[in-house]
């Protein structure tokens, strides 16, 4: 039996339509993927900005502490033993600190947490500074050392509870 393949009117239209639909589908998929890539990149850029914003605030705080150490050094030039007393007065009430005595040497530990809220999520920069007893030729960067400079954010809590209907109308 001989089968005769014959082009029907409209078959080319169907083929072209299918081709167009396929192309449109692939184009839309491609756009969706690249748009999500762009959103991810923007989020990464925003996180990076937040990091440096917190870091900058930390640097301001560090500078503030160093300038107070500088003032305390100037005041207690004639009486070096009064350095920590003068520094304690200059630091004021807003800076949380603790005094340590190790092997007869005194030091101050200063703690500060800087919080930044972004998109209802908090990011923290925890700073701990150690101020040690200055020697006669000590520089401020040697007196004030950074023990901790840590940035962290609230852990993300995944809401995995399924809202099921309990059968009560």
């Amino acid at each position, binding site marked *: 039996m001989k089968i005769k393949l014959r082009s029907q009117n409209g078959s080319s239209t169907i083929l072209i339509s299918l081709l*167009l639909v396929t192309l449109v589908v692939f184009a839309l998929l491609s*756009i969706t993927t*690249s748009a999500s890539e762009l959103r991810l990149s*923007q989020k990464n*850029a925003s996180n990076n900005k937040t990091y*440096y914003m917190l870091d900058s605030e930390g*640097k301001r705080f560090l*500078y503030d502490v160093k300038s107070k150490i500088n003032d305390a050094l100037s005041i207690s030039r004639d009486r070096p033993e009064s350095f920590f007393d003068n520094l304690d007065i200059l630091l004021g009430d807003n800076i949380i600190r603790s005094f340590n005595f190790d092997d007869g040497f005194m030091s101050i530990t200063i703690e500060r947490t800087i919080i930044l809220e972004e998109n209802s999520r908090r990011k923290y920069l925890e700073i701990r500074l150690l101020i040690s007893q200055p020697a006669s030729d000590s520089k*401020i960067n040697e007196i004030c050392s950074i023990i901790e400079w840590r940035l962290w954010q609230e852990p993300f809590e995944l809401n995995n509870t399924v809202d099921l209907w309990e059968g009560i109308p």
Partner: protein
Amino acid sequence: MRSGKKGFTLIEMIISVGVLAVLAVGIIRLFIASEVTHKKAIDIDRAVLETNAIIEEFQEIINPSEKASRFTIYYDNNWERSVKDSDSMYAVYGDIVMLSEDQGGLSHLDLRAVRLKPYPLEKSEEYEIYNISVIVEDMSYWGEN
């Protein structure tokens, strides 16, 4: 008057090719828009990396405000540093100023990454990809005390 032969007339062919051309242009524009969006995403990532590298360079400089006050770094199409020429595709503009007289040891570093040539199907000459402002510390400021 029909001749009795099967086939398409010239008018039918012109109309069908015209309709196909219009649809094809629309689809091609969709693909180009997708490519441009993808390129923008890559550019943001690279701009973030490059600006971070510049910030870290400045953190290690002893006296940043003496090093430069205003600068421009040019990049080629692959985000490799290059000299300014017709092939330069991206630039990072930097501006460093002292924060205030009271805070002499701190400087403000502003960075702005731009694309110098427009993306396909776009007109803006200098497209801003990313910008960031940070504070850098002058390490030499307390050194003398």
